[in-house]
C-alpha cells in the first residue's frame, strides 16, 4: 500500500504509507497545491520522509489535522513553527580580491618553505650537538624501506636505460664505424646525468609520496599533535631520520644504477662484437673522477630535496582522506619540478667549474 493524495475543497487528504517511496510520488503535487488544511487521519505509517513532507506543509502555514499522537509528537519535536537554516549562498569575489588572495597565499607558502628549511637546520644543529639523541634505529628502518626495498625497481629501470641508450646511439654511430664510442656515450651519460636523475625520479614516486602519505595520516590522526605535546619535536623525531636516510641512500642507489646501466650497455656492444672488457675500459677512460663525484653529489642533493618535500607536504596536510591523497600527489609533483630545476642548476655550475 502506497501513499495517495486527494484535494477536496481546500483540504488535502493524505493516506497510506508516507515513507520515502510514498512521499516521492506525492511530494510534487503536495508542494504545488493551494490547500489550507491537511487531513492526515488516513495515514497509517509515516517515517522521516513523511514527517518532512508534513513539516514543509506546516511551514507554509497549512494546518495538519488528524495525525495520530505518536506522529504528531515526532512532528512537534522538529519544531515546525521555526524556519530551517538555509544554505549559505557564496559571495562572488572580484578579480582584485582573487589576485590579492592568490598573492598572499603564494607568499605564505614561500615563507612556509623557508621556515621549514629553517626548522630542519635547527633540528640538524641539535643533532650535531647531541648525536646520542639521534634516532639511529628509525633511520636504518627508513633506509631499508627507501633504499634496499627500491633495489629491484632501480636495477630494472637502469638496466633497460643502459640497453636503450646503447642501442639508440649504436645505430647512427655504426654508420661512421664508430661503435666503440657508444661506450663513451653510455658511460658519460649514465654517470653524469641519467643515473642520478632516474634514481631520484623513482625515489620521488616511491619514497617522497610515501613520506607525504605517512606523515599526512599521522597529522590527520592527531599523532603529530600527540608527539608535540609529549615534548618530542616532529622535526627531530620524524623528519630528520627520513632526511638523513634518503640523502645517504640516493647516492648508493645511484652507484648501483650506474653499474647495472653500464652492464646493460655492454651487453648491447657485445652483440656488435665489442667485448665487455674493451667496452668498460673505453668507458673508464672517458669518465673522469669529477664526473663520478659530481653525479653522486647531485644524487645526494636530489635525495635530500625529495625527502624534505615529502615530509613538508605530509606535515602540511589538511584533514581527511582526500587531503592525504592530495599531499602525496603534490609531493611527487613538487619533487619532479625540484629535480628538473636543480638538475639544470647543477649543469650550469659544473660547466663553470669545468667538470
Amino acid at each position, binding site marked *: 500500500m502506497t501513499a495517495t493524495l486527494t484535494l477536496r475543497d481546500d483540504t488535502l487528504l493524505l493516506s497510506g504509507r508516507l515513507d520515502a517511496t510514498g512521499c516521492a510520488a506525492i*511530494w510534487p503535487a503536495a508542494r504545488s497545491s493551494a490547500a489550507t488544511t491537511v487531513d492526515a487521519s488516513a495515514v497509517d505509517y509515516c517515517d522521516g520522509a513523511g514527517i518532512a513532507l508534513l513539516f514543509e506543509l506546516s511551514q507554509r502555514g497549512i494546518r495538519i489535522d488528524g495525525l495520530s499522537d505518536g506522529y504528531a509528537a515526532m512532528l512537534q519535536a522538529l519544531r515546525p513553527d521555526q524556519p530551517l537554516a538555509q544554505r549559505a549562498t557564496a559571495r562572488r569575489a572580484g578579480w582584485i580580491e582573487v589576485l590579492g588572495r592568490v598573492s598572499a597565499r603564494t607568499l605564505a607558502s614561500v615563507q612556509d618553505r623557508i621556515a621549514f628549511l629553517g626548522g630542519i637546520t635547527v633540528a640538524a644543529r641539535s643533532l650535531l650537538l647531541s648525536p646520542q639523541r639521534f634516532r639511529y634505529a628509525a633511520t636504518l628502518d627508513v633506509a631499508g624501506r627507501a633504499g634496499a626495498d627500491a633495489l629491484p625497481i632501480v636495477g630494472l629501470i637502469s638496466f633497460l636505460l643502459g640497453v636503450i641508450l646503447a642501442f639508440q646511439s649504436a645505430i647512427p654511430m655504426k654508420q661512421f664505424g664508430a661503435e666503440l664510442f657508444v661506450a663513451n656515450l653510455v658511460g658519460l651519460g649514465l654517470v653524469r646525468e641519467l643515473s642520478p636523475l632516474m634514481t631520484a625520479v623513482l625515489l620521488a614516486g616511491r619514497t617522497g609520496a610515501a613520506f607525504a602519505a605517512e606523515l599526512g595520516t599521522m597529522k590527520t590522526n592527531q599523532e603529530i599533535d600527540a608527539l608535540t605535546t609529549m615534548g618530542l619535536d616532529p622535526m627531530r623525531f620524524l623528519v630528520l631520520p627520513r632526511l638523513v636516510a634518503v640523502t645517504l641512500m640516493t647516492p648508493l642507489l645511484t652507484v648501483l644504477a650506474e653499474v647495472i646501466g653500464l652492464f646493460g650497455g655492454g651487453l648491447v656492444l657485445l652483440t656488435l662484437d665489442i667485448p665487455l672488457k674493451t667496452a668498460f675500459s673505453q668507458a673508464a677512460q672517458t669518465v673522469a673522477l669529477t664526473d663520478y663525484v659530481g653525479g653522486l653529489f647531485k644524487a645526494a642533493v636530489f635525495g635530500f630535496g625529495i625527502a624534505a618535500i615529502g615530509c613538508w607536504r605530509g606535515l602540511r596536510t589538511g584533514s581527511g582522506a582526500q587531503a592525504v591523497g592530495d599531499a602525496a600527489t603534490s609531493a611527487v609533483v613538487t619533487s619532479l619540478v625540484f629535480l628538473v630545476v636543480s638538475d639544470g642548476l647543477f649543469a650550469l655550475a659544473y660547466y663553470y667549474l669545468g667538470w
Partner: protein
Amino acid sequence: MSEPIIRVEQLTCAYGPVTVLRDVSFSVQAGEVFVILGGSGCGKSTLLRHLIGLERPAAGRIWLDGAELTASEGAARQALMRGFGVAYQSGALFGSLSVLENVLLPLNEFTSLDPAARELVARLKLRQVGLENYADYMPAALSGGMQKRAAIARALALDPRILFLDEPSAGLDPVTGAELDALIKRLAGTLGLTFVVVTHELASIFAIADRALMLDKSAQGMIALDTPQQLRDHPPSAPVRRFFHRETA
C-alpha cells in the same frame, strides 16, 4: 511472540587465533531497544561488527529480518546490509563531504525523492541531533561530540528498520545525551524501529533499554540478559552487580 528481527545462535567471534566472544545467543524483537553492556575491551564493538556483517564469525549463525546473514553472499548480502543504519564508535563521517552531504548520501543513493525534498529530510535529521546550523561544515571542523551526532543523523537518514549505534552518547553532555535517548525512544515507539545500542551510561540504559545484554572479558562471552531494572535489583553475578552499583572489584 512474533519472529524476532535479530536472532543470534552460538556465535563465536575471533580475530585470527584470538577468541574474543564464545557461544553468544540472543534474539531481539522488532521495536525493541536492545542494549549491549560490558567493560572496555570485552567485545561489544566486535559483536556489533559481526551483527552488521563486517566480520565473519568463527562459528554460529546470525539472522536479520528473517534472512540468514551468515549464509548470504554477494548481492543478497549487500541488500541485507543496506537494510539497516550504523553509527560507528568513531563517527566515520566522510571527510571530503560536508555534514549535510554526509546525511544526504544515503538519501541520494536509495530514495526517489526530488532534490529539494531530500535536502529537507536531511536538514530535519540534523535539526533532530542539534546540528542544524552546522550543515555546511566539514566533519574535521566539528567537535568530537558533534561528529558523533552527525554520524547518528546519517544513520537515521533512511529510517532503517534496524539501527546499530556504538556508544552514541559517549562524548555528549548529559542534556544532549538525554535528548538523544528521547529520540531513540520516540523512533522505537512510533515507527517500530529496532535499536541495538552499545552504551556505558547507566542513566541512558535505564532511559531507553527494554533489555540489556552484558558481556564480560574474563568470561569471553555473555554473562547476563534481562531488563535493566531486573539486572540492577537482582544481579545474577558479581560483575553485573559491580557494573550496576558502580562498585570496584
